[in-house]
């Protein structure tokens, strides 16, 4: 097989993305040295970055730190340090890397991270967050606040759910005012929500460009690169400028008919987080086959905007609550995830699905066996299931994963050569009555727009 072609997008935004992230680490460094701006720890899932803008605070995302360590092949040491402390083999490795790094004083940028003014556990979907942030607060000697976001049990969040979250947001505002001695700037907050809505509009349009053949970017690997600015700068003018430029560059690529390879051969939907310690090799496994991810669920952890949701500056608190409750993949239920993926296959014109099971992450991975059955048996979409981890390098077996990936794409290629491979809507077989035992997404639940 030939060498994997280079596939990532390099335009102006490539450098800008780096600059933005560097600037973020500079602000964190400044915060560590002077306490100004104050830092607040947040979770990526359905994050409420806009609230922090109202205080001019800088977010500290433990997940981003953990994945940065993994990409730089530095995650194993802190994981082992945490295991020596007593963290079990089956604990989420993000937690272990983060806590281990704290103990050992390892940081992604090499400079110390600030002690957060508040460890704000925006508990969205994953209950590991609760314990993780309790421990982080303990180890850092920082105050802890719980923002309890009920899991989405119904198609739409109920009024009580929204009210419950809004009231907690107000409480957090009061708490942050006390801790930081700063007054919450309502205008700045509203402006941040307005910026977010613009970023979300641009981001959503970028994602929708991947419906084109060829797709101008990879909606998994390239999307992950864009996720940094999306979560750190969403509520700021820098974020708006960045994403509007990104949209322009992508539209130009579409106008030139440019994909990420000289010729796009396969279009897939990827479900699950990536193996960060082997990010490059994993990407190469797709690139070897000139396969583009046209959509991914992982890129919707922080927010799901391609189906229409936007923050609303006229109802800033309520829209934050709605975003946390219903418009991120983490807090949505499984049937909604099925439906999200099904729509990607149909509307983004995919040939198949790749499910990456991540040992660390029960939230993402529990039930993916059934998901595979649902897509292969009921919908007839070729679906590959592979396993490793997003942070712990010990669970990645390169030869085994590559073998499965190659077999999957060989099969797609073979099917195409004999004329049996279908794409997009044509790939979806109508669920046969009584086939299999997986629930039919959308049948019992109304799916959110």
């Amino acid at each position: 097989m030939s060498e994997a072609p280079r596939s990532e997008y390099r335009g102006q935004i490539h450098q800008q993305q780096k600059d933005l992230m560097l600037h973020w680490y500079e602000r964190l460094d400044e915060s560590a040295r002077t306490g100004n701006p104050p830092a607040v720890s947040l979770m990526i899932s359905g994050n409420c970055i806009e609230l922090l803008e109202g205080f001019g605070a800088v977010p500290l995302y433990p997940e981003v730190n953990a994945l940065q360590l993994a990409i730089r092949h530095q995650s194993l040491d802190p994981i082992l340090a945490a295991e020596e402390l007593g963290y079990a083999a089956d604990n989420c490795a993000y937690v272990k890397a983060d806590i281990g790094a704290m103990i050992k004083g390892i940081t992604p940028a090499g400079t110390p991270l600030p002690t957060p003014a508040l460890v704000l556990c925006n508990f969205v979907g994953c209950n590991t967050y609760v314990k993780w942030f309790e421990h982080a607060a303990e180890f850092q000697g920082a105050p802890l606040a719980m923002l309890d976001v009920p899991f989405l049990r119904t198609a739409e969040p109920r009024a009580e759910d929204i009210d419950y979250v809004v009231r907690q947001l107000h409480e957090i505002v009061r708490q942050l005012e006390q801790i930081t001695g700063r007054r919450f700037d309502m205008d700045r907050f509203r402006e941040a929500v307005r910026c977010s809505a613009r970023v979300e509009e641009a981001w959503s349009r970028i994602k929708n460009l991947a419906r084109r053949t060829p797709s101008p970017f990879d909606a998994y690997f390239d999307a992950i690169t864009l996720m940094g600015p999306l979560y750190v700068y969403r509520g700021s003018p820098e974020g708006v400028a960045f994403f509007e430029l990104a949209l322009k560059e992508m539209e130009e690529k579409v106008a030139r008919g440019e994909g990420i390879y000289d010729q796009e051969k396969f279009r897939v939907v990827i479900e699950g987080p990536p193996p960060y310690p082997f990010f490059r090799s994993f990407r190469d496994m797709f690139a070897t086959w000139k396969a583009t991810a046209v959509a991914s669920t992982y890129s919707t952890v922080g927010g799901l905007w391609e189906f229409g949701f936007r923050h609303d500056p006229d109802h800033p608190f309520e829209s934050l609550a709605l975003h946390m409750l219903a418009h991120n993949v983490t807090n949505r239920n499984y049937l909604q995830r099925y439906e999200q993926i099904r729509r990607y296959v149909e509307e983004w014109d995919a040939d198949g699905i790749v499910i990456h099971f991540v040992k660390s992450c029960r939230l993402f991975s529990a039930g993916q066996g059934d998901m595979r059955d649902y897509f292969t048996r009921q919908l007839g979409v070729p679906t590959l299931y592979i396993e490793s981890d997003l942070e712990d390098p010990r669970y990645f077996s390169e030869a085994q994963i590559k073998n499965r990936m190659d077999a999957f794409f060989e099969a797609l290629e073979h099917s195409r050569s004999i004329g049996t491979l279908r794409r997009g809507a044509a790939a979806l077989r109508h669920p046969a009555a009584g086939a299999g035992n997986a629930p039919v997404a959308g049948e019992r639940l109304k799916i959110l727009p």
Partner: protein
Amino acid sequence: MRLAAGVDVGSTQTKAVIVGDNGGLQMLGRALVDTGANVQRAAENGFIAACQQAGVSPQDVGYVVGTGYGRYKITFGNTQMTEISCHARGAHYLFPATRTVIDMGGQDSKAISVGAEGEVLDFVMNDKCAAGTGRFLANAAEVLGLGLDEIGPLSLEARHPVKITTVCTVFVESDILSYLAQGKKPEDILGGVHLAIARRTISLARRVPIEQAITMTGGVSRNIGMVRALEQVLGTKLEVGPDAHFAGAIGAALFAIEKMGESFESGIWRPADAAHTS
């Protein structure tokens, strides 16, 4: 005649097949050698032996597809394909009615759902674990002091197969030792061992739709005890031919002749180290 080869470098044994095409396809020769520590040499030796059996010169072979875990070590191959594609293709060639392939090899086992043209529709493999593979059987044979080719037939004589609860290749040893200490007969122990692997394999295989006809391939297909145990668990007959363990190499050779197309490429044969091939 256009000649192509498939070389399947497995963890235990290397299989090579030569096919010829002059209007119709013909299997001309095959060879089986132990893989051993030198994977590259095993591939070369297997290929040469198959050429000899076919009565053709290695130089006349126009295209070689390598498969199996050692496929990237084949220095003289044109391309590599996974054993999943090759076993499906090979099984379909041997039994055109094949819709499911159960392949048990030395270090992995897999189930493949196959379409009407031998194309792979879906597959599952055992993960990061030797349970349900030839390795498990080899361990059991070793503990009992028996040869690998003896355990299958002996297991068929089991009257009261023991219950083997572990599927762990390492822990099965202590299970067997404790049954021996209890005075259980080797055939009953082996009956239990074969059933345990069969159950494990079939539970894996049920993740792809198991449809008739079911063809067994891979080295373990030569173990009659395993074939019967799988049939017992499945409640149906398996297609197992005398060439079943060559299925991967046959599939590779079929892909090779197809990929060769009309263009005949001579001089593919470039042994990495000519000295040891003479």
